[in-house]
């Protein structure tokens, strides 16, 4: 890997930009960038990359951004880019990777995730959605929940039970589901903020060709773990400057509204600042550790910290505001592209942040994961194998 350096990558971007007009056709530009291996630089050639170290990706992104080139709007397709892509890269067939990675990266096709179920919650291995083999197809029936982007998605990664007789973790298989297929019904799921980021998805006799199975039959749990590891890293691992994120909002409010300050809240603000900065440095350190390696369970720790911080800081901001903290902006139902954490009121942040310790693995589950996988503590006696 030593042939790849930041300087050489910058030179590649410069060369690309000399032959491709960043002010021209947006989609054409993005497709060309993918084909030039400057999309996911750590991917192999032909799949958007050139086999460079993953930690050099920001160098490339920044070079394009500095040139004013359009990006692939990564936040509109977070599940695809952050979770489906690494899973397909690792477990997909050649055909699958060729078919899906390019339009995923360019944003032409949005992805969603059909894992959680109403009866299963954090116990993902308790998936009850059934997939039954029928010739070259699988026929899927069941209900999924907490699906963000389902109403915009073209494809979904899906976990379904293919062998009800096998032990819980063994009887599942991983598929890619066409969200436009007959039998797929998407209904908004309204959350305590009043809006609906998420959906319930009802699957009724949905046919999925066996060619869209990812990994072997019965290996769904193992494949899903790649997805989930990347989910936690994606959530916790963004690099932020000091006072990036919610702590910055709180600090600005504190500086700009001296009349709201009290001695008690001062102490709380300082403690939150210290914790936020510690978490930020930890994320930075993790990025340095991960630069060349695999995602590990350390991401779980960051997710716990960031969830706790978001809850603490937003709750503190509401209290700091006093009378203004009793006022909300709106309870009307609508469908945001993503939670507007920095743009709406402190009350919105406070309420939305309650979800941070539930979605993508509850903080309780994550603590158990740390205790067992990092610390090597024994599992609890299990009654459901």
């Amino acid at each position, binding site marked *: 890997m030593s042939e790849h350096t930041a300087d050489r990558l910058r030179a590649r971007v410069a060369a690309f930009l000399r032959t491709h007009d960043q002010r021209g056709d947006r989609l054409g530009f993005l497709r060309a960038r993918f084909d030039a291996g400057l999309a996911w630089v750590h991917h192999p050639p032909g799949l958007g990359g050139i086999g460079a170290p993953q930690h050099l990706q920001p160098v490339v992104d920044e070079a394009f951004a500095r040139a004013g080139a359009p990006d692939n709007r990564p936040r509109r397709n977070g599940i695809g880019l952050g979770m489906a892509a690494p899973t397909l890269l690792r477990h997909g067939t050649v055909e699958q990777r060729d078919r899906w990675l390019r339009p995923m990266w360019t944003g032409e096709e949005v992805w969603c995730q059909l894992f959680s179920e109403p009866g299963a919650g954090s*116990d993902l291995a*308790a998936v009850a959605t059934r997939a039954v083999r029928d010739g070259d197809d699988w026929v899927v029936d069941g209900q999924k929940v907490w699906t963000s982007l389902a109403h915009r998605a073209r494809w979904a990664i899906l976990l379904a039970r293919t062998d009800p007789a096998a032990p819980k973790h063994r009887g599942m298989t991983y598929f890619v589901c066409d969200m436009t297929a007959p039998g797929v019904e998407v209904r908004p799921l*309204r959350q*305590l903020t*009043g809006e609906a980021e998420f959906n319930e998805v009802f699957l009724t006799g949905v046919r999925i060709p066996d060619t869209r199975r990812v990994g072997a039959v019965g290996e769904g749990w193992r494949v899903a773990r790649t997805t989930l590891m990347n989910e936690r890293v994606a959530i916790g691992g963004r690099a932020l400057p000091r006072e990036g994120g919610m702590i910055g909002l709180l600090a600005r409010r504190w500086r700009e509204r001296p009349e709201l300050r009290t001695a008690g809240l001062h102490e709380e603000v300082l403690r939150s600042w210290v914790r936020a900065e510690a978490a930020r440095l930890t994320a930075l350190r993790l990025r340095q550790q991960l630069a060349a390696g695999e995602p590990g369970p350390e991401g779980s720790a960051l997710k716990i910290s960031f969830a706790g911080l978001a809850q603490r800081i937003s709750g503190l901001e509401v209290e700091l505001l006093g*009378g203004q*903290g009793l*006022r909300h902006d709106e309870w009307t139902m609508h469908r945001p592209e993503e939670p507007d954490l920095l743009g709406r009121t402190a009350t919105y942040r406070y309420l939305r942040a309650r979800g941070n*310790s*539930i979605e993508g693995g509850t903080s309780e589950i994550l603590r158990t994961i740390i205790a067992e996988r990092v610390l090597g503590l024994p599992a609890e006696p299990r009654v459901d194998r």
Partner: protein
Amino acid sequence: MTDLLYSEDEEALRDSVRALLTTHAPWQRTLSRIEGDEPYDAALWARLAGLGVTGLAVPEGHGGAGAGFREVAVVLEELGRAVAPVPYLGVAVATRALLAGGATDLLGPLAAGRCNPVLAVPFAAGPDLGPRPVAVGPGPALSGEVAGIADALPADVLLVPASDGLYAVDAAGPGVRTTPVVSLDPTRTLADVTLADAPARLVAGGADARAAVADALTAGAVLLASEQVGVAQWCLDATVEHVGARHQFGRPVGSFQAVKHRLADVWVEVSEARAVARYAADCLATADPDTAVAAALAQAYCGPVAVRAAEAAVQLHGGLGFTWEHPAHLYLKRAKSAAIAFGTADRHRACLARLVDLPGPVAS
């Protein structure tokens, strides 16, 4: 000795209020009201008044039940437990202001449920952060604004602290504009009130008025604590029931030790909050000299307990607790708002510092 328990009469009162709320204030009804035009439930309020709860703290000579604020606190526990959208807290605080200000003529109609007065101060006003008085005159008329008043929407009389006294203003009268506020707690929608030469009647003057307002704010801090206990108790009960029934990983969620211990901690805190709230209510009812300390303690302790209980409820209901269609969020919003009402916990701790002689660092 201070009685921290519930008397038999209080338990009977609780039972009748709870029975009424169970029938007439199910959470589904409260939730559906949020997006309508009438956030307060007038029919429910009339039924409650029919039980006589509005007159509990009104002396018998003024047409009340001559019970007291201990009993009012019991009613508030139940109203908190149901996040019921009725203006009882506001009426109770107004009752105290009228009693303290020596203005007794409204008490009879109030006790009979025919008058809903409200003290027109911001809900966030506390003992250290009093309301800004509005301007008086010319003549017996008021002009000014008061933002974020609780229980003002269904009120018919506004008790307005003005520069030279406490005035009564007809809420439906000329010069009064009441605007609903999109509130963090949609089960207790706040209102902004603008007065423009609104005709007003002096209720108490000068120092009496200031003392009446201060006393009413203290009473608010005390009484709110009981409501917070009710909120927290519902959160605990509902969560215990949920985790006992819901299974994950082949076991009831409530058999997992982390869940059990968190709920045990909530139980400990709710038990303590109940003792603190009862102490404050008893002090208020008996005009105990420790009332100011008890009130500050009540809001320094019970407010955060209710918030933690509600946050635990949302968390331990998992995804379900995060949905609009489950009542947990109503309690979360109630608890978080209540933690600001009548002054935040940190402001009450600062009051305690003065009251119990634990001063801050010497300025250097």
